[in-house]
């Protein structure tokens, strides 16, 4: 029978889940104006964020070792809740404009965040699996939320089919790991792994890696990403590209660092290759894109590669803490920049689906300076150009990787970043140097989102120490 400590460990998740259930009922029985549903969803996320922040420094485990609360989970959960809040802010006016305003949008978003938070706290592969489903199913539905558009339906179906396929890999991997170690608990797997033959365990771990690789869009498991990101409603894409990535990387890190240090030698090579291929391919294919949503999709693939770099030395206790802290910092930087960029895309998107070509950004600076400057900041941050948070993130990341002895990988990363400058700067050039006309949507929460994101992108880069300190303190229990 669970003790108070068990509930304490999982308190924010429980509160948000209850809130989401209540909101589902309130929305279908009482609330007429769906804007109110959005506000209540945001309130739930804010309260949960407060609870999560109140847990800083705490560390406990609960429910027979199924979940854990530690600095790492608190950092990730806070990041998830912020991206949930930004997801609501992006959607608030967008769903009205697109004529897809339904209360379920916000309820599903909340349930997805519940799954993401649970994933960061899970210390048992069964909970990891259920949490992954819980964050994915709402995203499948949200991707197809614009049901009357064939592209959105296709995005939902494609995401669902490939997501289900990848979950199959994950479950099969869990089965093999169980076969090798007779446990699904991460620390019990670690204890058993040293005393058993490792072939089954290695295959199981590799299959689990494939499952997560699909979720975070690592090459060669990225094929769904461009179509889904392009077809899904843009507000959904913005949320999905941050939230699902954070959750996938969080679970990947916890599972590998807690359960699989014994096979780090094999895994490091695989992770090295995946990170290198992802950075190269993501950036190269992004060059030929003309649609801004597709370009950002490939950019998100490339960034999955950068973040994956931080995981390569996970089995080396001398380097791992620093490189993981750099990875967490980079995740936070990516979330802020990414939401800003998607906010700008939403500001230019028209209900008839126009305004999504990169050429549509021509002359934006002469129409609306704030928006163009913000977009410039985001593009520079995605390249890793000063003075932006993306530059600081890349600096920490490359330094940690070189300290870990992976100079070759760092060189590939730098070259990939240089290549990426080509397509990011093309957007900037369009905005400043070309002539063009566009209709821009002005909506308070949307403007606030991209404005705040641009401010933070620059401001944090000037004083990044505290965020890096938080990321370094976010250790695994």
């Amino acid at each position, binding site marked *: 029978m669970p003790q108070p400590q068990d509930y304490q460990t999982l308190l924010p998740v429980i509160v948000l889940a209850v809130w989401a259930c209540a909101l589902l009922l309130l929305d279908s029985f009482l609330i007429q104006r769906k804007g109110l549903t959005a506000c209540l969803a945001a309130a739930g996320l804010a309260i949960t964020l407060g609870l999560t922040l109140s847990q800083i420094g705490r560390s406990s485990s609960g429910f027979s070792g*199924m979940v854990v609360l530690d600095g790492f989970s608190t950092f990730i959960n806070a990041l998830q809740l912020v991206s949930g809040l930004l997801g609501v802010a992006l959607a608030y006016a967008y769903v009205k404009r697109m004529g897809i305003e339904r209360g379920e949008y916000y309820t599903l978003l909340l349930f997805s965040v519940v799954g993401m938070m649970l994933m960061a706290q899970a210390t048992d592969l069964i909970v990891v699996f*259920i949490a992954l489903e819980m964050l994915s199913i709402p995203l499948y539905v949200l991707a197809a939320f614009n*049901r*009357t558009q064939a592209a959105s339906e296709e995005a939902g179906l494609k995401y669902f089919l490939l997501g289900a396929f990848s979950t199959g890999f994950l479950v099969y991997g869990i089965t093999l790991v169980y076969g*090798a170690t*007779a446990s699904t608990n991460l620390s019990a797997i670690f204890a058993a792994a040293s005393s058993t033959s490792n072939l089954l365990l290695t295959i199981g771990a590799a299959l689990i890696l494939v499952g997560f690789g699909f979720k975070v869009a690592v090459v060669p498991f990225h094929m769904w990403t461009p179509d889904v990101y392009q077809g899904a409603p843009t507000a959904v894409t913005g949320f999905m590209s941050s939230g699902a990535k954070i959750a996938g990387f969080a679970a990947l890190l916890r599972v590998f660092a807690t359960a699989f240090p014994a096979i780090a030698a094999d895994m490091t090579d695989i992770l090295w290759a995946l990170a290198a291929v992802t950075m190269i391919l993501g950036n190269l294919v992004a060059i030929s894109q003309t649609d801004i949503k597709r370009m950002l999709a490939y950019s998100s693939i490339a960034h999955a590669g950068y973040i994956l770099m931080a995981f390569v030395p996970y089995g080396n206790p001398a380097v791992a803490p620093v490189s993981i802290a750099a990875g967490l910092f980079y995740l936070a930087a990516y979330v802020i920049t990414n939401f800003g960029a998607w906010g700008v895309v939403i500001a230019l998107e028209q209900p008839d689906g126009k305004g999504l070509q990169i050429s549509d950004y021509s002359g934006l600076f002469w129409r609306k300076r704030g928006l163009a400057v913000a977009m410039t900041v985001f593009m520079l941050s995605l390249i890793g150009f000063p003075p932006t948070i993306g530059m600081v993130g890349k600096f920490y990341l490359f330094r940690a990787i070189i300290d870990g002895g992976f100079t070759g990988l760092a060189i590939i990363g730098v070259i990939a970043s240089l290549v990426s400058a080509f397509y990011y700067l093309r957007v900037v050039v369009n905005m400043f140097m070309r002539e063009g006309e566009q209709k821009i949507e002005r909506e308070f929460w949307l403007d606030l989102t991209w404005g705040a994101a641009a401010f933070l992108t620059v401001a944090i880069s000037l004083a990044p120490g505290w965020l890096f300190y938080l990321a370094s303190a976010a250790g695994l229990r």
Partner: protein
Amino acid sequence: MNIDFILFLVLALAAIATALGMLLSRNAVYSALFLVLNFAVVAVFYLLLGAPFIAMAQVTVYAGAIMVLFLFVIMLLGADELAPGKALPWQRPLAATLAVVLVIEAAYLLLARGAPSGLVTPPTEYTNSTESLREMALALFGQYLLPFEITSILLLVAMVGAIVLAKQEKGGRR
């Protein structure tokens, strides 16, 4: 040779026959019905292995509910009337390769790990299935309490998702 082994042989033949029937039927509805039979046979396998709960779940959820959904989808798409299309060019080699991999893997598990490593213990012999179910229930509602409760939220989310996607809003466009 005991009765369990004879039963297993008969059932194994039945399982292979129904699986072949599923693959070789030209009509998708017949395939689905063969699959129901196959699920039923597999359910008996679970009983042989001393897992009555999984056998029950296999019958109610897979042979019952999921196959109903399969049939609905086949009929929804009208797939049973479609002319058989051309197979993808790389489908056969890929399927053959994967099949070989599967066979090798199964052989490895049988030969190399046929002798138990001691980590995974064979299922306990229970005198009756109620006892075995009770043991499972105590684990499910004790140690695995949290996954159990999250499953209900997962089912709720799936329900909301299905309704959002398949149900038209009152006065909606569809």
